[in-house]
């Protein structure tokens, strides 16, 4: 145990603590670090210029999360409704792309969306003759890339509670006269909230800290926090400010995780209640 914990401490805890400390120092004149205490970096992070990038990131990540959850939940529902023996197969193939290289999955969208890409070819083939539409390097392309990359996890997270759902609950609801829609909204959905929350948190956290997708599909025009952190460390050479941004990112992540834990606790309470009712 000890060597593993030492490894994690030396190469994760200590470096992260270092970044936290770095965030409280000044940038040196020649791009180095001036070891005088300051809160300037955090003030700069909430400056309208940078706060705009935070909001932008939150909006892009939020939209991607919403779309991924809707598609992912529908897919998980369809898999859970398929014949039992097919479910593991469907699930395996839904998750498989997730384990191939992230850069390559993002690159695949450049191939689809660029001006002479497959989508343009398809439009031409259908009789479209105008200018090729600009789809790459837009916010939509960034969102599509994020949804594509993280969808498998939402499917997995939503499938777990859907497959465990007691079918008698839905039947009871129907027997008592509720419509299919009401049954879904009042019975199925509340019981599967933990899965939705887990999937949503995952997509949101990974999207908001993402660096590769905005860089490749946004063409550098849609800066997100990850890109800003990258710039501070590799181009602007303002490490203390980059460190403050990274800490803000971690803070957002922790807040989202805490919200999810609270939601999961409440839903767990509801699930026990519901199964108690079904037994009784």
């Amino acid at each position, binding site marked *: 145990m000890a060597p593993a914990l030492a*490894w994690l401490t030396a190469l994760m805890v200590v*470096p992260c603590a270092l970044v936290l400390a770095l965030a409280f120092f000044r940038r040196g004149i020649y791009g180095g670090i001036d070891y005088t205490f300051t809160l300037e970096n955090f003030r700069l992070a909430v400056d309208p210029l940078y706060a705009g990038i935070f909001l932008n990131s939150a909006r892009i990540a939020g939209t991607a999360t919403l779309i991924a959850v809707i598609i992912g939940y529908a897919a998980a529902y369809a898999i859970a409704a398929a014949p039992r023996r097919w479910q593991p197969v469907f699930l395996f193939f839904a998750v498989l792309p997730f*384990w191939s*290289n992230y850069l390559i999955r993002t690159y*695949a969208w450049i191939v689809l969306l660029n001006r002479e890409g497959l989508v343009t070819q398809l439009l031409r083939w259908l009789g479209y003759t105008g200018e090729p539409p600009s789809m790459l390097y837009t916010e939509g392309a960034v969102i599509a890339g994020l949804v594509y990359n993280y969808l498998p996890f939402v499917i997995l997270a939503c499938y777990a509670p859907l497959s465990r759902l007691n079918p008698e609950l839905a039947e009871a609801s129907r027997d008592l006269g509720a419509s299919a829609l009401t049954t879904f909204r009042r019975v199925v959905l509340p019981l599967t909230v933990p899965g939705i929350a887990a999937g949503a948190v995952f997509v949101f*956290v*990974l999207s908001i800290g993402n660096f590769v997708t905005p860089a490749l599909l946004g063409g550098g025009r849609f800066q997100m926090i990850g890109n800003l952190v990258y710039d501070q*460390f590799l181009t602007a050479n303002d490490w203390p400010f980059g460190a403050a941004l990274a800490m803000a990112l*971690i803070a957002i992540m922790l807040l989202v995780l805490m919200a999810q834990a609270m939601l999961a606790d409440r839903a767990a309470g509801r699930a026990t209640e519901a199964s108690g009712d079904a037994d009784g």
Partner: protein
Amino acid sequence: MAERSSGTRRMLRLVLVLVFAFLYIPIAVLVALSFNAGGLPTAWSGFSLKWYASLAGNAAILSAALNTLIVAVISTAIATLLGTLLAIGIEMRRRYGKGLEALIFAPMIIPDIVLAIALLSFFSMLDVTMGLHTIILAHVVFNLAFVCSVVRARLKSFDWSIVEASADLGASAPATFRRVTLPVILPAVIAGALLAFTLSVDEFIIAFFTAGAGRASTTLPMQIYAMIRFGITPEINALATIVMAVSITALTLSQRLNRGVIGQ
């Protein structure tokens, strides 16, 4: 689930078809183009392996592939050893604090960019010359966490009384480990190692920040990133197809060895 009308069933089937099309068409296009003689998405000009042949003659890609292999093999070996021991240590004790749990969970959830800049700051402050060795040190951090979680999942159903029985019967601790514990957890250990290997082969951001200056320690994902920024080329399609084939094979093997553990 409850019985459904044929209309609902048809709709659910349509959802599955659409989702799988969404997931697989982009990948399929890439693979198909890698075999297209013309190399362009505009027209199919016949089956050809020439882009694969041109990869084999590209020194930069070959050296990047070798670097990736070195990093992945060494970091996987270290992470498998440390992660397995950690998993056994935790599960044997059964009593552990929330802090320990968070420490092991953190590498899996921390944004790559944050760990990347943290390690860059750390290494440069210690004046460590960066290269393949620093990438290996960094990759062990998250690989260890993944191996540990896969092995722990297996150990949850492990009956520790057989370890006691073995000790009672006079077996030494190493003998007990080798003849009792290891055979039980071996599939999970191999599955964890394959998972770690795949993660390491695919990892880009942390490697990018901890590779140091110069091209000597460029890994395959770094090379792919540079190529993508430069534009679409048929060689990337071929390279992408090979890389995907390798990770998907490793993951399928891992999944077979350890049904259902991955993805939990």
